[in-house]
């Protein structure tokens, strides 16, 4: 299967034969994946397939035990300085938003720029407002996360990650915890981000989004990458029974 991309430049993320165990459970098996700069990869697969674990290894919320992960030219090791460098460049959006409930929307967005990037407060606030405008909720800046709807919270979470001006964005099932009518507003925000050329790795079951945005879809099952290719190729012409089964289940669900 050809993996050559139309995109050039150095790879943003390289996973090479990554293995991970939880106790005796082998959750990642020889996972190898290269994501080019400005490439958009959608990761899908049944629950428990290791897709979330893989994406969480990329910014070391989970540690891998074997293999290597290189992000933006820096290898992830126990070295804290390397970790700091990588986390500055990698933004992450979670399934459950994980906004800080005791801080206002604006404070959620300015905290890391001020304390990690050492940005002056006024500058950080201006930056945060510009991103909040982009996700179309500047009027909520003074509210607390608990006062917002799920879709709004997730858009704030995206803005919060963007305020660090990351080179890479990771999305871990960003729409799975949302009511159906709110999914679109979050996906639209992500599509807008894709149009700007952000490098994205996104775990999602939104096949429409994958078709529209992804350069490549990765299908994982039982801790390994089973298929890997452009969305049309994967969805129209699945090679393995596992993917066929998964697609039939997903489509039936919709």
């Amino acid at each position: 299967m050809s993996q050559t991309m139309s995109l050039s430049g150095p790879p943003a993320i390289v996973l090479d034969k990554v293995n991970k165990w939880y106790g005796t459970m082998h959750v990642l098996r020889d996972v190898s994946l290269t994501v080019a700069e400005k490439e958009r990869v959608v990761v899908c697969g049944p629950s428990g397939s290791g897709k979330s674990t893989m994406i969480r290894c990329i910014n070391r919320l989970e540690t891998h035990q074997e293999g290597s992960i290189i992000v933006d030219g820096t290898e992830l090791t126990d070295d804290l300085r390397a970790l700091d460098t990588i986390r500055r460049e990698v933004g992450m959006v979670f399934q459950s938003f994980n906004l800080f409930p005791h801080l206002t929307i604006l404070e959620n967005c300015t905290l890391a720029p001020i304390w990690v990037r050492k940005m002056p407060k006024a500058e950080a606030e201006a930056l945060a407002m510009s991103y909040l405008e982009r996700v179309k909720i500047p009027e909520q800046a003074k509210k607390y996360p608990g006062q917002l709807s799920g879709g709004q919270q997730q858009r704030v979470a995206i803005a919060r990650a963007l305020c660090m001006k990351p080179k890479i964005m990771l999305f871990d099932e960003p729409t799975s915890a949302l009511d159906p009518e709110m999914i679109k507003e979050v996906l639209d925000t992500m599509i807008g981000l894709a149009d700007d050329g952000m490098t994205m790795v996104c775990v999602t079951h939104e096949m429409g989004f994958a078709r529209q945005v992804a350069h490549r879809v990765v299908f994982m099952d039982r801790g390994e990458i089973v298929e890997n290719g452009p969305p049309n190729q994967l969805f129209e012409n699945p090679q393995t029974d596992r993917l066929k089964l998964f697609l039939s289940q997903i489509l039936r669900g919709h």
Partner: protein
Amino acid sequence: MSQASTTAGHVPTPARDQLKVAALGPWAWLRTNLFGSTWSTAVTLALGYVIVRVVFGLFEWGIVHAVWHVPYGPTGIPDTTVCQKAAGIGACWAVLADKYRLILFGRYPYDEQWRQAIVVLLFIGLYIVSGMRRFWRKELVLIWIATLTAVGILMWGGVFGLQLVTEDYWGGLPITLILATFGAAFSFPLAVLIALGRRSTKLPAVKMLCVLYVEIIRGVPLIAVLFMASVMFPLFLPAGVNIDKLLRAQVAFILFAGAYLAEVVRAGLQALPKGQAEAADALGLSYWKKTGFIILPQALRLVIPPLVNTFIGFFKDTSLVLIIGLFDLLTMGKVALSDPPWQSFSTEVYIGLAAIYIAFCFAMSKYSRSLERDLNRSRTR
């Protein structure tokens, strides 16, 4: 159709019941809540009788038949015959009028006791300032340092023309407040560090030390810790070195309270969803920034009620220094009662002491409730 026949004719729904209460005011409220049935009427009458008897009894004893002053003999010894006669009928508040200086300020030189009065006021002012959210900034640390320095200068003296008074003469309310305030100020940060250490996954040695500390201190009675501080600890010091008894008791208190508070703080840390730490990590915040900005502010908010519970407990536990010969408020009450003319009036003295403890503890509990409401406003919609 009249109201009465409506009630008789239909089974009233709860909603209609409430409407009626709203319409008819206090009498209807009384009828539904206190005299709703024969049984409830009987209980209401019985309890009402007990309450009226107790309140009237206390009123008569404490105010109507109370003795407020006694005459003093030519040598300055109070003549308590009036009180003796009133015993059992009326309270003898004269004992407090006579002994309040001794109880509040201990054996501190009489003419210098104004210094201790200022110390008490300084402490109360410090509590009020610290309680106001608009003062929650870095300068508050300076205010604490300044106030505690002033407290030290006033208590010891020896400078600015103040007479030197050594710790042996300190006593009463200032001792209680010193133990409680320094105890809280040092044990709380200690507790936070211990709780964080106990949850550390990357530093197993630190974790084990924290677990040991908490389990050992928690497994020993406070009285034993105080005894160790006052009796055993000096044995291990080289000859000639003498660390003041008050300081030793203070350290014992800090260590003891620290272990208990650490477990309360740990409960808060555990209650916080894991996603909060992960989001902070993903944003690149360092461990201390993550802890300071994200984890602790939320974790501590969750445990305000048990934290205040523990603080109130330790405020009262300061009275245990009695057993190592420090003269705190409660001890001074006992000392006052050892004066022969007043020996039989312990009830009045202890009521007076209780009033002081209640005032401080009630203020703490009141404050914690308002703090909880203010801080958790962001959680409610």
